[in-house]
């Protein structure tokens, strides 16, 4: 069976959907570590979801590096994107 989400680096706290995923689905992200996530939002192909509960200000880790920080509380299985993440470096839809 093909996987629906991909974990790029084992240090990451988000995974990337490799096909559209719907609320309520249980997704196995890492077969070895048996990380199973219950999805809370619709996650489109290429989008990210959280692997753990995060508090506001917590770094978002992808590629094993910080890509920004949470601007609010993010629950495990929630969509992680521009509505709840901010770069410390700049973002396209902000002036």
């Amino acid at each position, binding site marked *: 069976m093909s996987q629906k989400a991909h974990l*790029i680096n084992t240090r990451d706290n988000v995974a990337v959907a*490799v096909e559209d995923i719907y609320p309520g689905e249980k997704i196995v992200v890492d077969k070895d570590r048996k990380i199973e996530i219950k999805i809370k939002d619709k996650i*489109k192909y290429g989008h*990210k979801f959280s692997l753990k509960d995060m508090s506001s200000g917590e770094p978002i880790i992808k590629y094993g590096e910080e*890509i920004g920080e949470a601007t609010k509380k993010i629950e495990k299985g929630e969509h992680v*994107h521009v509505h709840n993440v901010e*770069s410390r470096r*700049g973002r*396209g839809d902000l002036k």
Partner: protein
Amino acid sequence: MASFKGYKRKDGSTGVRNYIAVLPTVGCVNVAAQKIATQIDDAVPFLHHQGCTQLSPDIDIVERVLAGIAKNPNVKSVLLVSLGCESVTAEKVKKSISQHKDVDLVRFQELGGLKETVSKGVKKIKEMSKDAEEERTEAEVDDLVIGVKCGASDTTSGIASNPAIGKTVDNIIEMGGTVIFGETTEVLGAEHILTKRAVNENVKKKIYDKVDEMEERAADFGVDMRGGQPTEGNIKGGLTTIEDKSLGAIVKSGTKPINGVLEYGERPDKKGLYFMDSPGREMEFMTGVASAGSQIILFSTGIGAPQGFPISPVIKVTGNKHTYENLNEHMDVDVSNIIEGKETTGEAGKRVFEGLLEVASGKKVKAENVGYDDSGVNSDIYTRGPVI
């Protein structure tokens, strides 16, 4: 220890192809260079559109790159074709090449035009290439210089093909080889992460300086490179921040320390991983890394970029299964297994590495097979200043 079979050169380098390079010192004699090359087996023209009516810093770049292409290990001997009135000093380029390769020169205006230039050029090549090495012998991975590039990217590039190539790069560096990556615009937003891998403060500063210079050049045109990143389309596709976007690109450089920063087309003086200040556009980027001595270019693509390069074979790696099937005529390696969870990134990277050694030993890439590596269409020299 992994090895391959290549052509040993007098300067100690090892070629994976055995070309006679025909280099016009100015775009005006591209036609002559092309006509000479078509008459000789193994001859390849390196066509470009530079060499005159440019300011001296750009002429310096053109001279450096012409010499660099000539010194590329895949080249056994060189014929320079000069017009006669161009800004590039053909004799200077010839002198720089002569320490490494057999080189000769024909002058178009002096010879009285195309017919004589072609006939004299062909004759000179035949005289020159007699004692060049024609047999492949055992060579080690530390003889390889590999250029790394991504183009026509999509979501799969950041998830599969770039990370897989990153693993391949780590393999090559661990075996004592050399890898060059670049595309200064792609570092933007992740320079603070990339610089953590700089071997010293000097290299760290140089990376920051090159990104600053690139942003300043864009600002001179009234363009803010940092604003508007990631683009609306990137955000729609799931990229959240500029770091998210840039990391997806630079992950193809692996995890090893960055030994140095190269000027465009500059050859590294040691082995290991290097960053080249360079544009992302395919023909100029590939020219830059070939001039730096890359025998092979690893090219990650998502939607599907078809181009090869005239001097160095280009291996196309894609993580997009549809692209691999739809553009199969142009794609060399399929790493979509990573996305399907059937293969780890490390396993795919090892497969890319093994494929690279086959290409190094002579196996043709798709671009060579279908003839998508023609010069002039797929090569040019990157210059920055005004054209006069």
